[in-house]
């Protein structure tokens, strides 16, 4: 049986990598991919914990997170396309249009 510390550590490191990507990258599509990476890290953590505690709730939550991720992908990429149509770029430094 795989020790519980393995999935928790890998999930934490992957989540941190995704967070750094969101902080550092300027390309909106890459930021989106980093968000997916963070969601996957959380999924891995949930699977590891529920495997350890012998409950079925973790995989169920992973299923719901996947549904939410699919919805987020559709809407997020639509937003990116709408932004690109407006400014011809996906560089997020150009999108400070809400600044007063």
């Amino acid at each position: 049986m795989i020790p519980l510390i393995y999935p928790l550590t890998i999930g934490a490191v992957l989540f941190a990598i995704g967070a750094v990507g969101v902080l550092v990258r300027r390309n909106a599509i890459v930021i989106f991919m980093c968000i997916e990476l963070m969601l996957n890290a959380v999924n891995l953590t949930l699977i590891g914990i529920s495997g350890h505690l012998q409950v079925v709730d973790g995989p169920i939550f992973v299923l719901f997170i996947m549904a939410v991720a699919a919805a987020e992908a559709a809407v997020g990429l639509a937003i990116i396309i709408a932004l690109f149509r407006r400014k011809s770029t996906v560089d997020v430094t150009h999108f400070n249009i809400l600044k007063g």
Partner: protein
Amino acid sequence: MLVAKILYGLFALGALIGGINVVAQRNPVNCAISLLFTFMSIAALYILHGSPLLAMIQIIVYAGAILILVVFTIMLLALRDPGQGLQKFWTFPQRVAAMIVGALLAGELIYVAVGAISQAAAPAGADLKTLVDPATLGHALFGKYLLPFEVASVLLLAAIVGAVVLTRRPKGTPAMIDAPHADEAEGGES
């Protein structure tokens, strides 16, 4: 069990390398391929955790649907310069600050995890193989979690409608603003 641990380490390493490449690669297409690598590695980790159904769903949903959408968007936008958006990207202080914040975040999460492990003792006679077979998962999904399941379907419907509304362009606007740079083309639509 040693084989399982070695495989686990291998796929975990693959997931981490893919994740680092998603952040570090310059071309968005390379980022997408690295992300695919990470998704596949995590699917393998799911199998090693005894939930093959979720591994298959991971491949279908993430690698099959979401990543295809991302690659399709990259193709659709046809960014003229693959390195677009990277000129100001590697500003040094910001990179260092982000690395420090990321390291702190990872350390904090691992610290909390190690603290939690001591309290979460595994039940006796744990058998991983029987845990998340599709039948158990289906009974839980359509029994205890029926309401969230239905809400998720409504959420997906809302996402479909939202995507259509967001990408619909107003009447009379050109298909794509054809200026190489954004700021001159502004004001084209009301």
